[in-house]
């Protein structure tokens, strides 16, 4: 396998409130390789969005990165000045969000918004950038791109708006595209189209995609690899096939089971029971320990070391690392 384009190393992100500090992301590490689609799944509040925003350096003011590094081409993004970061954002690393219609400036024509993204990173005239914007729009499957470019966001459907955003983010052919639940709030049929588009674009321009989602169905269809997060920790990273056929971590196993059940529309509560309560964020050990069926004493005070089941399949769980010694 080639060298990773992004290396996240022991990234720790904390939310400081008046009385105490909580690590909403607790020392996570993962690599992303060129041209792959990696999924990031986990329940609400597990820190997927914060992971993505850390890479982009777009965290809300109250939330700070307090440890680790994020390597992009031998440079640590976390050590860059804000000016240096701006040359990366939208250029080498781009991100699309949920609620695409809200993510576009309501007072600017969508074509101009795309053209602006082009202008920011490439030395082109404004006419050229406008025609490039139209080109990009037809590339992401917007019919009648020329006239659509003159629309305002409120005139577009959610699906169209997301395509516009994708076009905007692809303007400079980034190396990594982060998609944070890009289809939340869209119709099911539109959702499928957007994922199809992301996949097409990934193979066409060879961008790596970090896809954040709740939906294991999407993971199985779109992703090559997947990382499973719980309460700010990564529990397991593996290929998509392994995660379904050979899930190692007790949390992954529970999650898959509960999702299968939810599919049969019986018991939604299993899912709720799993969602992290705030106390686990202060635990020094595995944050899933209090819910885990196979919990060991050391799980409560020590972080599990990485256990590699097979190349590319890592689990953070004492049940494996100790057995294997």
């Amino acid at each position, binding site marked *: 396998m080639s060298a990773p384009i992004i290396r996240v190393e022991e990234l720790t992100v904390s939310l400081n409130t008046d009385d105490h500090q909580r690590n909403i992301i607790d020392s996570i590490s993962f690599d992303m390789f060129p041209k792959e689609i990696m999924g990031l799944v986990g329940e609400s509040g597990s820190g997927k969005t914060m992971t993505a925003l850390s890479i982009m350096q777009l965290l809300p003011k109250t939330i700070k990165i307090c440890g680790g590094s994020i390597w992009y081409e031998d440079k640590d993004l976390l050590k860059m000045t804000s000016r240096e970061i701006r040359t*990366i954002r939208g250029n080498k690393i781009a991100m699309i969000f949920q609620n695409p219609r809200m993510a576009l400036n309501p*007072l600017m024509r969508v074509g101009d918004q795309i053209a602006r993204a082009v202008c920011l990173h490439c030395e082109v005239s404004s006419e050229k950038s406008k025609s490039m914007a139209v080109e990009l729009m037809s590339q992401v499957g917007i019919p009648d791109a020329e006239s659509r470019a003159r629309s305002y966001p409120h005139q577009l459907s959610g699906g169209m708006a997301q395509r516009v955003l994708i076009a905007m983010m692809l303007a400079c052919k980034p190396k990594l595209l982060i998609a944070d639940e890009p289809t939340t709030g869209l119709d099911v049929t539109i959702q499928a189209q957007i994922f199809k588009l992301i996949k097409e674009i990934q193979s066409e321009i060879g961008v790596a995609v970090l896809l954040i989602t709740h939906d294991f169905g999407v993971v199985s269809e779109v992703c090559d690899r997947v990382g499973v997060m719980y309460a700010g920790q990564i529990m397991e990273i593996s290929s998509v096939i392994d995660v379904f056929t050979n899930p190692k971590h007790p949390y992954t196993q529970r999650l898959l089971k509960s999702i299968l059940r939810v599919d049969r529309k019986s018991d939604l509560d299993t899912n709720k029971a799993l969602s992290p309560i705030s106390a686990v964020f202060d635990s020094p050990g595995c944050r899933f320990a209090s819910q885990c069926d196979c919990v060991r004493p050391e799980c409560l005070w020590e972080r599990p070391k990485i256990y590699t089941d097979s190349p590319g399949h890592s689990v953070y769980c004492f049940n494996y690392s100790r057995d294997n010694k």
Partner: protein
Amino acid sequence: MSNFFNFILRRFLLTIIAVFGVIILVFLLTRLLPNNPAALRAGPLADAELIKQYEREMGLDKPLIVQFGTYTGQLMRGDLGDSWRTSQPVREELGIRIPATLELALSAFIIALFFGVPLGIIAAFYSDSWIDQIVRVFATLGASLALFWLALVGVYIFYYLLHWAAAPVGRLTIGINEPPEITGLFLIDSLLAGDIETFKDAFNHLWLPACTLAFIVSAPIIKISRSSMKDVLNADYIRTAKAIGVPPTKLLFKDGLLNAFIPILTMLGIVFGYLMGGNLIVEQVFAWPGIGQYAWKALSTNDFNAVQSFVLLIAVVYVSLNFIIDLIYALINPQIRLE
């Protein structure tokens, strides 16, 4: 585009209706004042016969509806009636005073605008930092200091102690001639006439009352700029702009300001209306020959026509400001322009 014209037309008709409503309201309100203006005009020694005669002359013996008909008829012809106090046409008396108030209001407005909006924006951008704290203290001062007190302190410091400002008696020093009237605004007229001496003198008289007013009205401008900018900076499209690497100044003054401008604009309209109609206190302290002083005298002597005309004038100012704001709003916001 035709939607845009529809919108303007609708707004314009509403504006006309509003003006008409104001006319009715003002008419009724002044008739509800407790004193009989005919009696006042006749003086304390007059007998009933004289009062009756005055009432007939002033048309006060007719039914309200007839009085109203006469009144609106006059209005249509641009006739605001005569002041019962001075026996001069109200239109002329107001006409002389409007430029004075307008010059003061415009200057204060421009100062407050160019001061308040950027301050509010910067405070929003650096929210909760020391810059923000200072700006907020400043705005709170402006909101809580009494205009009267501030004006007097201003005169004391800048005229009496420092001599930076001219004596607070009117728009020009006695002996300096008014510039030939073009706009009625002395600063502009004196420049147009190339008369630097008059310009300097007018400026020396103007800046202190203008700054006093500006200080007071910049408070709401700062507050609304800060809060609407803060909202905008949290919006998703600002995050998108950051995600493509838009630099902060552009982010703030292009993406941000345009979107935050709509609530700010509404506040600017209110502030300007207030400056036109509400700066009586400053006009009093600085002996500024504007419409505020005139209205005060008219009100204290039950000078119907003058009071009516003043209230009407201010109401028309407010209503037209609202119309203009709606226009700008539609120009900025495509959702209104195109739907």
